[in-house]
């Protein structure tokens, strides 16, 4: 019984995405695909404990989901004959393995490009990727983004309708658009990760790490894909050390490095090495992965190679001019050359970041290190007022108390 349940869970984990992607390719219907898979899973949970686990559980699930799709479409067809459904039925009569030969033939890759199409609003891309590619429930996604299930359901529906009504094709983009569209996929995955990271939502961050791994398997030649995978593995490796026993945030400097997930660090390094191995000049994600790798290779915070980290930020800034990256560079400069130098560097970008909530926190930290206690306390007060999350706010309040008592 439990063996059968475990076998179902294993087969779903292995095959869900392939089955759903293939059914969406054939039918163009996201909901139908999910429903047919769900139906196959329910049947497996009924049958396998009685009949035993089939020899090829994945094939069983695929066949059952495909037959279900045929049933549903036949029923629909009698209601109102549609060309698309007739075509889908013809195709479903064959096997579901519709992957075309070549590096871009995989249905899962097509699904990713469809869900991350730039004609969809960003929030819709994120939601649909989590639903259709990662397989999260609407409720799980709603909870992660702090909206009601009904709101998230609407967001998903609008995205699926846009795909259907605007004629967004289920396909990999033309080769001359591939780089830009891959960037769009990576932006969605990165946004999911940063959302999870900022909210200390480990499950959401872990989904992003998984997604980046999937993209890396599907596009193993793309150095930015590998770079993002490396970056997320390296960041996520520090997950357990980011909070203490009381759930309070612990800064990178103060983290217990023994609590980092060293297997994940290794996996991150391997992905980074593969990205370097492509021989392409380092891109946006790879440079960030290089920075994360430099942090993780320091046994103690004091051993951090700030010279190379500042150099990596400089390279990042020539690639993508951004005041937020410049602020992160200023922090690194503060460690390399001392807090006063860091403050000068912050001063150079402050005007562009007047509204950025982390600016006062960065200034406060540098002022504290520089021993300018009164100015630091004032900056911490601003930082507390601007804090985006509760754990962030409590960390800043703690610093403020340490300074004023």
């Amino acid at each position, binding site marked *: 019984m439990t063996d059968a349940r475990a076998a179902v869970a294993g087969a779903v984990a292995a095959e869900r995405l392939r089955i759903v992607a293939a059914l969406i390719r054939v039918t163009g219907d996201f909901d139908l695909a999910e429903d047919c898979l769900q139906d196959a899973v329910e049947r497996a949970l009924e049958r396998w404990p009685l009949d035993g686990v089939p020899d090829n559980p994945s094939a069983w699930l695929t066949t059952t989901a495909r037959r279900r799709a045929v049933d549903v479409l036949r029923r629909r067809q009698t209601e109102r004959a549609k060309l698309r459904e007739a075509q889908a039925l013809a195709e479903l009569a064959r096997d579901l393995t519709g992957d075309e030969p070549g590096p871009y033939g995989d249905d899962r890759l097509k699904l990713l490009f469809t869900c991350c*199409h730039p*004609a969809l609003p960003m929030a819709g891309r994120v939601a649909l990727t989590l639903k259709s590619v990662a397989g999260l429930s609407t409720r799980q996604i709603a909870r992660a983004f702090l909206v009601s299930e009904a709101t998230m359901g609407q967001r998903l529906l609008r995205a699926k309708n846009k795909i259907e*009504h605007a*004629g967004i*094709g289920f*396909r990999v983009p*033309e080769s001359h*658009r591939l780089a830009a569209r891959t960037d769009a996929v990576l932006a969605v995955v990165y946004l999911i990760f940063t959302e999870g990271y900022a909210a200390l939502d480990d499950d959401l961050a872990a989904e992003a790490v998984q997604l980046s791994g999937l993209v890396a398997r599907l596009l193993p030649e793309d150095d930015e894909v590998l770079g993002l995978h490396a970056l997320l593995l390296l960041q996520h490796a520090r997950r357990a050390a980011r909070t203490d026993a009381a759930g309070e945030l612990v800064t990178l400097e103060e983290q217990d490095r023994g609590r980092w997930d060293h297997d994940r660090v290794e996996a991150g390094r391997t992905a980074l090495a593969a990205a370097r191995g492509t021989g392409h000049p380092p891109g946006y994600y790879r440079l960030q992965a290089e920075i994360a790798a430099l942090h993780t290779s320091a046994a103690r915070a004091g051993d951090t190679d700030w010279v190379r980290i500042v150099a990596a930020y400089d390279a990042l800034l020539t690639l993508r001019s951004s005041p937020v990256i410049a602020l992160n560079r200023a922090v690194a400069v503060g460690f390399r050359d001392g807090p006063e130098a860091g403050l000068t560097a912050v001063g150079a970008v402050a005007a562009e970041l007047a509204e950025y909530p982390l600016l006062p926190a960065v200034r406060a930290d540098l002022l504290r290190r520089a021993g300018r206690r009164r100015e630091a306390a004032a900056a911490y007060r601003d930082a507390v007022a601007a804090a985006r999350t509760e754990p962030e706010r409590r960390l800043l309040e703690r610093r403020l108390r340490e300074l004023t008592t």
Partner: protein
Amino acid sequence: MKYLMLVGTDPAHSEADAAAAPDIEEWFAYVTGAGKHVVGDRLRPPSAATTVRVRGGELLVTDGPFAETNEWIVGFDVLDCADLDEAIEIASKHSMAYTGRLELRPFWPLDG
């Protein structure tokens, strides 16, 4: 799938964008040659537009377009494409993609 491509002006573009804009005759030759063009034309400016409504049973005819903005529609094309990506590709080669903006609106057939 059929798309109505609305061709609009957009003051927010640089001289370099304008210089990079491809020739419209080339675009027309390409799009008709590919069998993707159904119909299209220029439109006279908003000053030549007339808006028609019936309200309370009364015909109201007014001078000008729907909305007064500093961007307006100067032309349209109907494209017949396999999917949105193909329509985007065709739009991206239009000279007004560089100096204006193009809006792709899918047809919504009554039997769809």
